[in-house]
């Protein structure tokens, strides 16, 4: 009983402590920065794309740090899904269980959200999920590079989904796909207005789809870098930003998975719209 009370009492205390830490960190950042001309926080430097070999100009096919971490993502996926399942055992090993779990997770998502007839697009959705998942998690390794923090990457991913889904919608349903914008449940005078809103929201999809992913990943990494800069400047109080970094990092681990999941499940939702456009 006493322990429980202590636990319940601990909630607000932790919250207050957290905000106190934040206040101290921010205040000291302001106070100390003139005294430390060396305090130059560059939270965005980690996103810089640099050629991996030499320091020549960045051309179309130059191998960059981003290329390296994309290749590492491929290696991770191969390790998890190909090497992990090489035993083909009826009773799975640990690695094979992980591979099967990933397969079952995405397969069930496609089946549940987009419907049974969407299962033939499962490999493509699995590709998206695995790439984003591994790019996100590899990006959490200190000094690594996060491919999904770049809007160019996520925009291409979102555009692939958008174009594919739109073309598929017209191929499968012909002009009937436009029924997606004609809300037959609404009263007739409202329908043209709703059609315009639906149309706008349809074309905003790839924008929100891509910026959600890149924004979440980038923001978390930038915040960690900002706190790291404070830690360098605070001297004996540096444990405060380090604690904050630990907390943000834990959050980032969650975000890395959730954003991959959200991107994938939205893809499934869009796919469902293409296959069954009726409202």
């Amino acid at each position, binding site marked *: 009983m006493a322990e429980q009370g202590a636990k319940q009492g601990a909630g607000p205390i932790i919250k207050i402590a957290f905000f106190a830490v934040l206040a101290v960190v921010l205040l000291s950042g302001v106070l100390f920065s003139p005294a430390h001309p060396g305090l130059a*926080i560059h939270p965005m430097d980690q996103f810089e794309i640099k050629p991996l070999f030499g320091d020549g100009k960045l051309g*179309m096919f130059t191998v*960059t740090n981003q290329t390296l971490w994309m290749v590492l993502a491929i290696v991770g996926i191969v390790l998890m899904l*190909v090497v992990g399942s090489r035993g083909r055992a009826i009773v799975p090993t640990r690695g094979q269980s992980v591979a099967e779990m990933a397969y079952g997770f995405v397969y069930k998502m496609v089946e549940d959200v987009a419907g049974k007839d969407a299962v033939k697009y499962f490999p493509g959705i699995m590709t998206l999920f695995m790439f984003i998942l591994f790019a996100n998690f590899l990006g959490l390794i200190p000094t690594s590079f996060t491919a999904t923090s770049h809007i160019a990457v996520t925009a291409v*991913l979102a555009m692939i989904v958008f174009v594919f889904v739109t073309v598929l919608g017209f191929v499968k349903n012909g002009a009937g796909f436009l029924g997606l914008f004609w809300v037959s449940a609404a009263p007739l005078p409202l329908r043209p207005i709703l059609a315009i809103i639906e149309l706008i929201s349809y074309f905003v999809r790839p924008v929100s789809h891509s910026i959600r992913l890149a924004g979440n990943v980038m923001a978390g990494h930038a915040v960690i870098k900002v706190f790291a800069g404070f830690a360098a400047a605070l001297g004996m109080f540096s444990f405060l930003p380090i604690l904050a970094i630990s907390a943000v990092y834990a959050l980032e681990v969650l975000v890395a998975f959730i954003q991959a999941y959200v991107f994938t499940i939205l893809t499934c939702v869009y796919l469902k719209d293409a296959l069954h456009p009726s409202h």
Partner: protein
Amino acid sequence: MASNTHSTEAAHGGAEAAGMPQLDFSTFGNQIFWLVVTLVVIYFVLTKIALPRIEAVLSERQGTITNDLAAAEELKQKAVEAEEAYNKALADARAEANKIVAEARAEIQADLDAAAAKADAEISAKAAESEAAIAEIRAGAVDSVKAVSKDAVKEILGSMGYKADAKSVTAAVTARMKG
């Protein structure tokens, strides 16, 4: 934040001075190229190797589980049948045993009856024989008594000086003995 950035970012030039490498359009071509390469590689690895393999394993497992369940069901059926056969055999054996017991009992009863009847017959025969012997003995005894009585009466009469004729003595003794 990036107020006193100078040497490093200046080297990278214009667009990055704003602070976001994400908006440096000069890198977009490179990024998109490598992204597409990566996605194609992942797609082929998944569709050619990983996914068919995992699918095969999963369906094989499902098949094994289904087979095992069917086999278990069959074995269960067999066990039920075996139990029924066992119970039937047990009931048969019990009935057989009861029959044998009843037969044995009937046989013993018959033997017993026969032996009792035989014994009864023997006993009654013996009894009749004994009765006959007793009757004979008794007759013999009466005759002996008659003779002894006659002799005794003759002797007594003789000693008393009477001369008794045999005929009257015999008649007297016989009459006396009847009374």
